[in-house]
C-alpha cells in the first residue's frame, strides 16, 4: 500500500491483562515458544472462572491518591491503561498534545456496591413496602461518590482529570460494539482530517459478580475450569470466560506522527463494524463481507487475531468463516488467553496485533487443537470481534515498512 499523510497509524499501546502490565509481558506472550495456560481465578466466583487483573501499582499512572479514591477498579484500570498508551507514545508529559488530543472511550458501567445491594434485598425479603424501604436505604447507604464511579462517561472524565486529555471526550457504549465503533470513528476522523491524534480504548473488569450475573441471563459464562478457546463446549457452561482488560491506543495521522518523530507500530488500513440478525447464515454473510477489507492480503503473511468470546455457537461460526475466507493465514484466538474484555476486546486485539507486526513476532499457538504454528512473521494482521450477543467488527493492519 502506498503511504499517505492521512494514513491512520498506531503510535502508542497501553495494555493490561492477566499477563501483566504494559507492553513487555504481552510481547513475551506473543513471542514465547509455547504458551502456558493463562492465569485464571476459579474460586472467587465459583463456578465461573475469570482472568484476573494482574498486580498493579496504581500510582505509576494515577499519581494522586485522591484521584485513585474517586474511582473503583473499572475506572482505575482504564485510566491506568490510557496512561500507559500516552507514555508509550511519548505524549504523557506533552501538555499541548494532550490538550488537543481527541478521546473516544468504550465504556460499560461501573461497579455496584454489592454490600448495599445485599443489605437492601435482604431487608426487602422481610417487608412488603419494598419501594419505601428502597428510598430509606438508598438515601442513607449510597455513597455519593460511587455514583460517579459508576457513570459510563466518567472513565473518560477521569482520564481528562488525571492525564489532561481534553481536546474532546466521547464515550461509546454497547458492549463489544462500543470498542469497534470507537476505533472506527477515530479512524475516519483522522483519515478525513477532522482529528490529528486520538486516544482510543476501553477497560473491563471481569472480577465482578454484578457483570457475571448479566451474562448469566443467557447462560453465556463458562463454568468449571479453563479450556482453550476453540475447545469450549456446552459441557462447560456457555463458553465465555471474561477477562479483566485495559487496552488503549494512540492513533495519529501519519503526518502528525512523522512530524514529531514518533515510533509507528502499524498502519490501520481499514476498519468497519456491522450488525444484524444472525439467523439463516446472516452472521456468516456479514463476516465474509467484512473480510473483503483484507482482500489484497497474502494469506501466508497474514495473522488473524480473532476476538471470539468463547460463547459456543458464534465462536464456532466465526472460526468457520475465518478458515474459509483466510485459508492459509495464521489464526490466533487472543480472547482464549486474555479472557473476553467486552468493550475493551476490539482495542485489545488491535494492540496485540500492532505489537506482533512491529516486533516481527512469530506468535505461538494459543490452542493447538486448531491453531497451527506460524511459519514466519506477518506483514498484515486482521483483527475480528464478534459480540457475544450482537455487533461485529473487523480491522486490517499492516506493518509500517
Amino acid at each position, binding site marked *: 500500500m502506498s503511504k499517505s499523510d492521512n494514513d491512520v497509524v498506531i503510535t502508542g499501546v497501553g495494555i493490561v491483562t492477566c499477563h501483566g502490565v504494559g507492553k513487555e509481558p504481552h510481547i513475551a506472550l506473543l513471542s514465547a515458544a509455547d504458551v502456558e495456560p493463562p492465569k485464571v481465578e476459579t474460586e472467587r*466466583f465459583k463456578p*465461573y472462572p475469570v482472568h484476573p487483573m494482574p498486580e498493579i501499582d496504581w500510582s505509576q499512572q494515577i499519581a494522586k491518591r485522591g484521584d485513585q479514591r*474517586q474511582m473503583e477498579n473499572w475506572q482505575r484500570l482504564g485510566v491506568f491503561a490510557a496512561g500507559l498508551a500516552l507514555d508509550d507514545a511519548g505524549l504523557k508529559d506533552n501538555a499541548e498534545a494532550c490538550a488537543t488530543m481527541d*478521546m473516544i472511550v468504550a465504556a460499560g*458501567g461501573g461497579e455496584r456496591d*454489592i*454490600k448495599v*445491594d*445485599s*443489605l*437492601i*434485598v435482604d431487608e*426487602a*425479603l422481610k417487608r412488603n413496602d*419494598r*419501594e419505601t424501604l*428502597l*428510598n*430509606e436505604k*438508598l*438515601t442513607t447507604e*449510597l455513597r*455519593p461518590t460511587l*455514583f*460517579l464511579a*459508576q*457513570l*459510563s*462517561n*466518567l472513565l473518560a*472524565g477521569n482520564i*481528562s*482529570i488525571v492525564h489532561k486529555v*481534553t481536546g474532546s*471526550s*466521547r464515550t*461509546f*457504549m*454497547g*458492549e463489544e*460494539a*462500543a470498542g469497534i*465503533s470507537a476505533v472506527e470513528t477515530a479512524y*475516519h476522523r483522522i*483519515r*478525513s482530517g*477532522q482529528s490529528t491524534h486520538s486516544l482510543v480504548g476501553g477497560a473491563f473488569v471481569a472480577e465482578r*459478580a454484578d457483570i*457475571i*450475573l*448479566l451474562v*448469566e*441471563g443467557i447462560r453465556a459464562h463458562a463454568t468449571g475450569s479453563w479450556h482453550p478457546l476453540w475447545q469450549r463446549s456446552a459441557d462447560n457452561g456457555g463458553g465465555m470466560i471474561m477477562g479483566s482488560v485495559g487496552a488503549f491506543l494512540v492513533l495519529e495521522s501519519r503526518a502528525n506522527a512523522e512530524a514529531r518523530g514518533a515510533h509507528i507500530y502499524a498502519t490501520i488500513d481499514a476498519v*468497519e*463494524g*456491522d*450488525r444484524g440478525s444472525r439467523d439463516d447464515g446472516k452472521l456468516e454473510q456479514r463476516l465474509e463481507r467484512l473480510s473483503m477489507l483484507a482482500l489484497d492480503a497474502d494469506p501466508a503473511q497474514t495473522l488473524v487475531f480473532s476476538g471470539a468470546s468463547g460463547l459456543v455457537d458464534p465462536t464456532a461460526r466465526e472460526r468457520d468463516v475465518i478458515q474459509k475466507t483466510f485459508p492459509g493465514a495464521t489464526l490466533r484466538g487472543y480472547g482464549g488467553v486474555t479472557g473476553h474484555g467486552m468493550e475493551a476486546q476490539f482495542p485489545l486485539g488491535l494492540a496485540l496485533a500492532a505489537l506482533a507486526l512491529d516486533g516481527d513476532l512469530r506468535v505461538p499457538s494459543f490452542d493447538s487443537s486448531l491453531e497451527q504454528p506460524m511459519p514466519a512473521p506477518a506483514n498484515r494482521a486482521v483483527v475480528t470481534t464478534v*459480540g457475544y*450477543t*450482537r455487533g461485529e467488527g473487523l480491522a486490517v493492519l499492516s506493518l509500517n515498512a
Partner: protein
Amino acid sequence: MSDNRFTDHLGRPIIAVTGMGVITSLGQGLQDNWAALTSGTSGIHKITRFPTEGLSTRISGTVDFIDVPVENAVERSYAFARETTAEAIAQAGLSGDFEGPLFLAAPPVEPEWSARFALADRAPPSQVEGDAYDRFLTAMRQRPDPAFLEAVQFGSISERLSDRFGTRGLPVTLSTACASGATAIQLGVEAIRQGRTDRSLVVATDGSVSAEALIRFSLLSALSTQNDPPEKASKPFSKDRDGFVIAEGAATLVLESLESAVARGAKVLGILKGCGEKADHFHRTRSSPDGGPAIATIRAALEDAGMDETAIGYINAHGTSTPENDKMEYGSMLAVFGERLKDIPVSSNKSMIGHTLTAAGAVEAVFSIQTMLTGTLPPTINYVNPDPTIVLDVVPNQKRDQQVRAVLSNSFGFGGQNASLVMTLEPA
C-alpha cells in the same frame, strides 16, 4: 467537488436538517410541544412512578404517557426514541429503510430494583452478609432470564432502532452525560462531512428516571428541592434557583447533506452549521471556575460554523437552574459575546421541561431550529427574582415574536463534557 452552493467555508458539505421529532413531559410531537413551550407551560409534576415519601425531591418531568411493555429504562428510552424517529422520518419525507448510520445518545442502564427483588425472591437464603449476588447467580443458573440481560445491554436500544428504521452499519450508542444529545448530532454531522454518507439519523433519548437515579443526583445536591408547586421549581438564571429538575424525553433529527436534500426535493428546516467541544479536567462534577473549556467550546462551534459571535441572534442555553451551571454558563457567554450579550435573547427550555439529561442536547436543538422556523422565542419561565449577577435577556415568562437566523445551543455535563452547536435558518 460539486456545486459550491452545497459546500461551506471549508469546502465541506453543508448539513441540512430535514426531519425532527420530539417528546418531553409537555407531550408527544413537535406541534404539541411547541404550543406548550411557547405558551410558557411547565411539564414538571409530582412523581407518581414510585413512592417519594422521605425524599427531598419529589418532582420530575417524567414522560408517563407512552405505553411500554415493561417498566424499565431501556423499554422507556426505546419507546420514546421510536416515536420521535417515526415523526422525524415522516417529516423528512423518507420511506423504507433509512440507509444511513444511526447515532444514538442513550442513558447508561442498570437492572431495575424490581428485577433484583424478583431474583432475591427465587434465590436461596443468605448464608453470609453481602452475598446477594452469589444468590442471584444461583437463581440465574437455575433459570436463565434473557429479558434480564436485554434490559441492561447498552446496545439493545440501538439494536431495535436499527432494525425498525433500517439504518446502515454498526450504530453508535454514546454518552457524554448531559451533553450526549449534542454529541450525537456532532457525530452525525462528522459522518456526512467525511463523505461516508449522505444522511445520518441522530437520536437522543432518556427514560431513566427511577428512585435510584433521583436519589443519586440528590446525594450530589444537584436537584431542586422546591417541590411545591412543581411547575415553579426550575428557574434558570433566577436568584433563588437551587438545582435542576430531572426529566425524560427524546428527540430525533434527520441530518442530510444539503445537496442530497435539495436533489430529492426535501424541505430544509434548518442548517447544522457548526459543532464545538472541549473537555474540562478541573473536577468530576464542577466546571473550571474560569469557564475556560466552556468558552473554548462555544468559540470552537462558531469557528466550525465559519461565523463570528456577532452573527448569533439567540442562545438556547443549557440553563439547568443549578447555582453553578447558570453562573458558569453566563460567565462563559459573557467572555465570548462581551457587551453585546445583554442584547442577545437567551432562554432555557429547561424552565419548562426540566433537564432531559441524555436527550437534552438534541431536544434543545430541535427547539432551536423551531425557534428560527416560527420566528418565536420560547420564554424562560419562573423568572420573577432575577439573579442580579447574571445580566441577561432571558425572554422572561412570555414568548416573544422575533425572527432570528442563527442560534447557539449549549450543553455541559458531568465528567468535563462540553458541546455547543450553531444552527442557522439558511445555508449561507
